């Protein structure tokens, strides 16, 4: 590693199954981009790769390797030669890969055939930026081991769907609840009709949205409870935040809604200043509760 840029970490499919022990899942911010990067170089979809934020990234290959770049589109060069995104490329020993800032989006993925083979912690190689589990963020002069279990690089024939987008406006779908009943109907209407702005506070834990204030209807405290990825939590400030890959497994503020899973990577890739509107997947009072007959 010559330069990690603002932030570069190792990420895979994440560390699930330990939430009851206080362990966050972590894993790639844009799982779709991670799996596409891996497929290009013949790795299983959730193999560990390098995730880097906003480019400024330089790495030297000490061994020959096939690699791929996906996610936020960066202008990348292998030595003097431009590197195509969403393809696999062969690097010779000594080749230097440089990536400039992305044209749009935040997170770019560098997968190498065989995967990044640091020792797993609780069966994941992901850096957990909230609690410090897994490998530390990458620093200049780090040397990363590459696994030997890679398959054959290939270009998948299907069309790549991308979460990073050049649009400055984003429409995201969400389900109401589980705590929409902590807000008045009027506040719920404000939430789904307002235009929200992605704040400049970027990290792997949450996207913060600024806009009209969403006051709580209840004044008591919510006992801490488990949360779903994509949960839109409203702290007492009334400014919502959307839990992303490295969210804590539990939270103590009411969750007004949860992003649809397909939109989670799009939220993660939204750069500060992006305008976001929220579209409810179904009308209703804000929760899907089971009735006495046991149906939703």
């Amino acid at each position, binding site marked *: 590693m010559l330069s990690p840029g603002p932030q570069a970490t190792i990420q895979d499919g994440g560390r699930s199954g330990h939430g009851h022990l206080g362990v966050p899942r972590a894993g790639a911010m844009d799982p779709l981009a991670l799996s596409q990067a891996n497929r290009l170089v013949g790795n299983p979809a959730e193999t560990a790769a390098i995730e880097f934020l906003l480019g400024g990234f330089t790495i030297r290959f000490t061994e020959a390797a096939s690699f791929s770049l996906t996610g936020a589109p960066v202008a990348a060069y292998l030595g003097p030669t431009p590197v195509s995104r969403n393809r696999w490329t062969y690097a010779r020993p000594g080749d230097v890969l440089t990536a400039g800032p992305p044209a749009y989006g935040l997170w770019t993925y560098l997968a190498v055939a065989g995967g990044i083979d640091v020792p797993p912690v609780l069966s994941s190689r992901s850096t957990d930026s909230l609690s410090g589990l897994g490998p530390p963020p990458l620093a200049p002069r780090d040397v990363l081991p590459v696994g030997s279990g890679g398959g054959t690089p290939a270009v998948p024939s299907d069309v790549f769907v991308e979460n990073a987008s050049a649009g400055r406006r984003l429409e995201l779908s969400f389900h109401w609840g*589980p705590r929409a009943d902590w807000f008045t109907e009027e506040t719920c209407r404000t939430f789904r009709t307002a235009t929200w702005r992605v704040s400049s506070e970027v990290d792997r834990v949450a996207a913060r949205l600024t806009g009209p204030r969403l006051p709580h209807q209840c004044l008591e405290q919510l006992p801490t409870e488990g949360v779903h990825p994509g949960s839109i939590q409203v702290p007492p400030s009334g400014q919502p935040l959307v839990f992303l890959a490295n969210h804590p497994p539990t939270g103590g503020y009411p969750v007004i809604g949860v992003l649809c899973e397909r939109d989670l990577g799009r939220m993660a890739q939204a750069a500060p200043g992006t305008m976001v509107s929220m579209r409810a997947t179904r009308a209703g009072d804000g929760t899907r509760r089971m009735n006495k007959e046991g149906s939703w």
Partner: protein
Amino acid sequence: MTEPASGAITSVRRVGDRGLLIELAERVDAHRVAAFVRDHPCAPELTEVIPAARTVFLLGRPSALDRIGRAIPTAAWPEVDERRGKTVVVPVRYDGPDLHEVAERTGLSVREVVRRHSGTEYRVAFFGFAPGQAFFSALPDVLRVPRRPSPRVRVPSGSVAIANEFTVIYPLDSPGGWNLIGTRAGPPLWNTQAQPPNAVDVGDRVVFDEVR
């Protein structure tokens, strides 16, 4: 012995694409409901089962959530067996920087603080705050002191600490506002290279053994 769940469940809600939130009446132990869920035939299709103060949250395949959600309101689950769980002895050196302050605030001598802390059998109540941080309850009434007014930036891993009705061992170096009274003198209870990573589980008994 089983107890019918009627009245024990306040609500069952689907959350997002893959979540289920089971809300419990005040008297119900979330760990019993979590144990019922983990024994359900659909449990292998779940990725998380997170018991908390008043809820159990599940993440997993929607079809599995629907089946468990339908089973929950009429479920019966085993009584918690008080003999269940193991007893773990943790050697502790009582050398924490807050030991004297705790003695002052409780009106006890340092010796008496150590005697009361190490003379109590605790149970693992829950995990939280940091990965692998087990909360042991209940601290004897006489030792209950609030958290420190301003937290330390760094508490070393292995610190034995108290606040309110709980005592904990810091599993990692982390910021923390608890009162540090000692240092774990044996192997760590949280070891991410072990399977399972936690040497104690919810319901286990913990005894602190003074090492001089």
